[in-house]
């Protein structure tokens, strides 16, 4: 923990001095010195982070690593994306051997209270749900009294089930199968009535069945899982991450994507003030760039190289992917559409 404390003191002293042109903290400096941003993802999470045939991680979470590299280093390919297991990735970040993590970590109170880790921006709102065979004829989780549930041993999934069934006074039986493939196989072959996991994972896992149409995901969502980016504490770095994410959300609401950004840049003077504030030569984002120590065109680079939030969502999880998630029906819809993705003002 000494490294963490020295980090904090260093960050604090750089704040107190304040005279420096940029707010750059030690993590930011380290990223620039290495010219590479070490970002940890889950090694196998279909749709979120999974290596392609070249061994390069692709997916929703991996793209937020690229977002950070595009904003800070001007090049999304400078993200050194590494697949590391959950507990190891926490330790690695605290020990200072990685700069950030983008791996579906639920932001909880006790985790946030731990030192050495800073939660930055929630990129995905998930929740735990249930999947049942269509043949069971169940329309609501309230009808699951006495069901046998397949769930992962030792996960928060089981705790949430216990809470939920307990509160409703319903009985259930858990089939503990540690291996995910075996657990799914048990569910598909009818050894348990209910399969419990995060809703997004359920729709991904359903695709692994030979007959995905035979299974339905029940409407109840029994827990809140705000999946959040974590960073090594450093005010400038956290601000860069948070506002890069906001750029992606703002681009989403302004209808700007990686496909049309160049066209918009070519006629920027005819665009609305909000667009000019994001991408103009002397704008809110260039002001932020000077203070945070980012390249002047960081907002453009994020949108150009990674895309808007909606673009990233649709690319990896949307209707054209095996997951077939319709963003408007999830909590990740834009605030204007009744979702939780609320773009903060960039000015």
């Amino acid at each position: 923990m000494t490294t963490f404390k020295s980090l904090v003191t260093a960050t604090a002293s750089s704040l107190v001095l304040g005279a420096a042109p940029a707010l750059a903290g030690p993590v930011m400096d380290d990223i620039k010195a290495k010219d590479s941003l070490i970002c940890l993802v889950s090694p196998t999470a279909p749709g979120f982070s999974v290596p392609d045939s070249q061994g390069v991680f692709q997916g929703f979470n991996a793209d937020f690593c690229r977002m950070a590299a595009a904003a800070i280093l001007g090049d999304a390919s400078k993200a050194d994306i590494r697949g590391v297991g959950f507990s190891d990735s926490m330790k690695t970040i605290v020990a200072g051997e990685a700069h950030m993590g983008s791996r579906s970590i639920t932001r909880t109170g006790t985790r946030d209270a731990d030192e050495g880790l800073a939660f930055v921006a929630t990129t995905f709102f998930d929740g735990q749900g249930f999947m049942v065979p269509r043949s069971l004829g169940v329309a609501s989780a309230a009808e699951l009294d006495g069901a046998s549930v397949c769930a992962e041993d030792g996960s928060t999934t089981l705790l949430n089930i216990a809470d939920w069934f307990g509160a409703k006074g319903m009985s259930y039986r858990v089939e503990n199968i540690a291996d995910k493939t075996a657990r799914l196989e048990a569910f598909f072959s009818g050894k348990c009535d209910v399969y419990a996991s995060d809703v997004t994972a359920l729709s991904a896992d359903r695709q692994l069945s030979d007959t995905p149409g035979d299974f339905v995901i029940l409407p109840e969502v029994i827990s809140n899982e705000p999946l959040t980016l974590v960073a090594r504490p450093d005010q400038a770095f956290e601000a860069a991450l948070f506002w890069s994410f906001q750029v992606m959300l703002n681009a989403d609401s302004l209808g700007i994507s990686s496909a049309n950004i160049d066209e918009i840049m070519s006629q920027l003077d005819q665009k609305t003030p909000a667009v000019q504030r994001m991408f103009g030569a002397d704008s809110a984002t260039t002001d932020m760039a000077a203070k945070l120590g980012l390249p002047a065109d960081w907002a453009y680079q994020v949108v150009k190289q990674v895309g808007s939030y909606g673009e990233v969502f649709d690319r990896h999880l949307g209707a054209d992917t095996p997951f077939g998630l319709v963003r408007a029906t999830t909590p990740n819809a834009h605030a204007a559409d009744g979702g939780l993705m609320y773009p903060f003002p960039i000015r």
Partner: protein
Amino acid sequence: MIPAAPPPPQRRDLLRQWAGTPLTALVSAVSAALAIWAIWIVLDWAVLSASPPQRPMHACAETAGACWRFYVEKSRFMLFGTYPYQDHWRPGLASMLLLALSGVVGLRITGRLDRITPRVLVALWIATIPAAFLLMGGGWAGLDRVDMSRWNGLPVLLILSVIAIALAFPLGVTLAVLRHQDRWPVLRRAAVVYIETMRGVPMVTVLFVGVFVLPLTLPPGTRISPVMATLVALILFHASYFAEDVRGGLQSLPEAQTEAAKALGLTWSQTMGLVLLPQALSRSLPALVNSVIGAYKDTSLVVVLGIHDLTSTARMAFSEPGWGQYALEAYAFVGIWFLLSCAFLSWIGRELHKGQSARSH
């Protein structure tokens, strides 16, 4: 006088063996039917209803058999995982070095390649192990540094099996000698406690201790990567099994060997090194080969620690969205690998057995 050679076995004997009585005939017929059925299924899957490699990926969706295009697309990933693509020659070369050296050792044990002395073999090991790590890790002579979290697939499997076994062997021999001798009772007791503890604990426990407890014992500020921690744990674990194999060899030697060595005026270390150990090692070879096969296959357990060996990269290969239906192809790849490598190991075992029975006649 040279005894007359026995007549060659007649074909009728073969027939009698296979179908001498109604029962053997039935067993033979059933097993032949089963074998033909199994071969037919494999042939049908791999060739007859398979989609050949030159056909595009989307053609695989309609075929019931193997999708050979999957191997074109994913073989390199299954072998080397997330190691930087343009640098795949490095894990490739490291794997080949380790495989070649293991092959040479195997052939040497069965009495082939006599020109390579044990001294040369030891020197080769001492050179190859650091060479494999340097090649994989980089950071010298213009090679990019590659973090151990990117060491996946075949090279990790080989590091954790071949290198673990190679380093566990000398430790195991030392432990066996310590347990066998009675000059230093304290060391003898220590060896007994160590061996019995390690053998009394499941391998998964040892692995977890290696990855989660070992780092705590290091001075603050130093970190050990999961691959290295696992390697250390595996070396310590396998050594106890090798020690028992070698001790079996040592105990099988007649007491007269020690007495004769003493009578010749050999010191304790000369007795051990020149008289007892060479005989004990050759006697314990079949048991050692057996332990090596077990140790090799157990390596896949490291998946529980988040280390991505061949089995794990094969799983990752079909976890990519849209590739989920090719699990069978991926597992077949791993299966063939283990089938071939274990076949080599058990061939060594059979050769040793042949050599031994020839010697005892």
